[in-house]
C-alpha cells in the first residue's frame, strides 16, 4: 500500500456502496471527512461545545436557515464529552406532554438521519423495555403509557410473560430478589452509534461552510451593555453577536462567564462495557428500582449504565463501588451473565436541573443562548435540539417545541417535571 491520506479543503466525497467498491479496487485515499479551517477573528454565530448538540445546531443553522458563517469551538476533540460517554439509547416515552412531543421529534429526525447526513449512524430500533418491580413503578408506567398514547407515541404496559418472550434470559419468576410485576414496552426505542452521529453532523456542517475548531477553549465571554460581543479563547479573541452555550458538564462555568446564573448541579454518571458475546439480548432493558440499564451492541458487547453518582463532582474517575453495585444488580435480572467480564468503565458529566428537563433558549444577556441542563438525557435529544436552537437563533424567538424549557421557568414557577421518566430510565 503506497497511498497516503491527504488533507484537502474540498467538500467530502459522497458515501455510497459504489464509492466504497471503487475506492476498494483503486486504493484511492478517502478525503478528510471535515475541513480544518483557520480561526477567523469574527463569526456570525459562535457555538461553544463540539458535541452532538453544538454540531447539530451548526448543521441546521446552515441547512435550514442559510447561516453558514458559524464557528464551533471545542476545547478537546469533537464528541469527546457527553456525546461519546453516553450509552447511546434513544426513546421518547417521557412523562409530560411537552417532553414527549420534544423527544418524539428527536426520534423522527434520528430515523432519517443516515440519509440526511449521508453517513451510516447505525440506528437500530430494537425496542425499549422498562421493568416494574413494585406497585409504584407500575402506576407511573400506566400514567406514562396513557400520556404517550395521547400524544401519539407507541407505548404499552405488558406482563411478566411478555417480558420473558422479549428477553429469554430474564428471571421473571416470583422467586427473584426483585420480582418483575410488569414492564413499559416502547417499540420505537433503540440504540445508535453515538460517534457516527457526531462525525456525520461535523461532516455535513463542514461541507456547508461551518468552521469546526478543536483544541479551542473558551476562557471568557465579552458582554457590553447587556449584549454579547464575542468570546476569549486560548487561541485569541473571536467577535460574534451570537454565542450559544452547548456544553455539558461545563455549562455553569460557561454561563458564569456571561454573568448568567444557572440552576444546575453537575454529577458524574458512570457506565461500563463487557467483552463481546453472541447476540442474545434484543431490546434495551431498564430497571429503575435496580438503577441499571443494559443493551447489546452490534459487536456483541453489553453496555451498562446506572444513575448518577451520589454527590456532585467534576471528576470523571470510575469507582469500584459503582462496578460492584452494577454487577450485583445485573445478576439479579439475568443470573446467567455471571461469568461475563467487564472490559472497561468510564464516567461522563451530567448537568442536572431541578425538574429533570433541559434549559433552552435566550437569556437576560442579549445574543447569549443556552442549550444546556441535559442531565442524563442529552444524547437522545441531539437532533431536535439542534433543529430548534437553530430556529430560535435565526428567528430570535423560541419555537413552540422548546418554549416550555426556558430559563425563566424557574422564576415563573412553571417547571416541567420529568423525574418520573428521566431519573434513572433512559
Amino acid at each position: 500500500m503506497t497511498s497516503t491520506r491527504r488533507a484537502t479543503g474540498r467538500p467530502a466525497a459522497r458515501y455510497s456502496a459504489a464509492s466504497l467498491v471503487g475506492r476498494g479496487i483503486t486504493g484511492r485515499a478517502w478525503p478528510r471527512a471535515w475541513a480544518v479551517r483557520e480561526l477567523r477573528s469574527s463569526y456570525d454565530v459562535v457555538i461553544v461545545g463540539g458535541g452532538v448538540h453544538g454540531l447539530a445546531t451548526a448543521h441546521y443553522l446552515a441547512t435550514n436557515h442559510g447561516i453558514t458563517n458559524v464557528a464551533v469551538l471545542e476545547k478537546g476533540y469533537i464528541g469527546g464529552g457527553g456525546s461519546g460517554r453516553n450509552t447511546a439509547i434513544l426513546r421518547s416515552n417521557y412523562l409530560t406532554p411537552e417532553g414527549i412531543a420534544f423527544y418524539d421529534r428527536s426520534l423522527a429526525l434520528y430515523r432519517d438521519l443516515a440519509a440526511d447526513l449521508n453517513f451510516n449512524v447505525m440506528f437500530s430500533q430494537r425496542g425499549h423495555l422498562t421493568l416494574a418491580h413494585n406497585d409504584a413503578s407500575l402506576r407511573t408506567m400506566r400514567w406514562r403509557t396513557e400520556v404517550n398514547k395521547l400524544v401519539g407515541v407507541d407505548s404499552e404496559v405488558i406482563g411478566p410473560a411478555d417480558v420473558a418472550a422479549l428477553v429469554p434470559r430474564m428471571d421473571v419468576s416470583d422467586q427473584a430478589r426483585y420480582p418483575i410485576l410488569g414492564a413499559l414496552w416502547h417499540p420505537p426505542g433503540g440504540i445508535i452509534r453515538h460517534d457516527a452521529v457526531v462525525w456525520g453532523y461535523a461532516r455535513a456542517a463542514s461541507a456547508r461552510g461551518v468552521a469546526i475548531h478543536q483544541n479551542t477553549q473558551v476562557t471568557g465571554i465579552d458582554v457590553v451593555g447587556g449584549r454579547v460581543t464575542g468570546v476569549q479563547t486560548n487561541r485569541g479573541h473571536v467577535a460574534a453577536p451570537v454565542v450559544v452555550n452547548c456544553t455539558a458538564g461545563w455549562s455553569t462555568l460557561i454561563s458564569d462567564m456571561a454573568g448568567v446564573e444557572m440552576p444546575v448541579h453537575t454529577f458524574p454518571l458512570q457506565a461500563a462495557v463487557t467483552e463481546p458475546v453472541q447476540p442474545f439480548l434484543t431490546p434495551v432493558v431498564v430497571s429503575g428500582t435496580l438503577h441499571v440499564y443494559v443493551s447489546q451492541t452490534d459487536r456483541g458487547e453489553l453496555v451498562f449504565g446506572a444513575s448518577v453518582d451520589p454527590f456532585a463532582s467534576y471528576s470523571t474517575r470510575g469507582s469500584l463501588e459503582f462496578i460492584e453495585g452494577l454487577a450485583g444488580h445485573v445478576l439479579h435480572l439475568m443470573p446467567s451473565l455471571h461469568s461475563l467480564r467487564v472490559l472497561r468503565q468510564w464516567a461522563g458529566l451530567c448537568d442536572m436541573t431541578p425538574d429533570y428537563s433541559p434549559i433552552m433558549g435566550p437569556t437576560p444577556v442579549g445574543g447569549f443562548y443556552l442549550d444546556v441542563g441535559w442531565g442524563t438525557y442529552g444524547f437522545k435529544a441531539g437532533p431536535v435540539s439542534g433543529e430548534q436552537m437553530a430556529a430560535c437563533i435565526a428567528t430570535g424567538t423560541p419555537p413552540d417545541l422548546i418554549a416550555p424549557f426556558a430559563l425563566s421557568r424557574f422564576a415563573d414557577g412553571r417547571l416541567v417535571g420529568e423525574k418520573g421518566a428521566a431519573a434513572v430510565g433512559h
Partner: protein
Amino acid sequence: MITLPCPWCGPRNVTEFAYGGEAGTRPDPATADPTTWRRYLYTQANPAGPVTETWLHRAGCRRFLIVDRDTTTNEILAVRRPADPPEVQR
C-alpha cells in the same frame, strides 16, 4: 471510593454518608421575598474547585457535618461540626 473524616467517628467510606449539597443559610421566612427563595432553592454556585457542603453521617452517628471538598479531584480539604466557627478544622 473516597473517605470522609467524620468529626465524631473518624474516617469512614463515603457510602455511609448522605450528600446534602452546598452549605447555605436558609432565608428568614418572615422577610424573604420570592427572588431570595428562588435563589436559595435553585441557583447555587456549582463550582469546579473548592466548595463547602453539608453532609449527613446517615449510616453512622446520624449527625450533620460541614465538608470543604474540591469537586475536580474529590479531595477533602477540611471537615468541621456545624456549630464550629469556619476556621476550625478537624
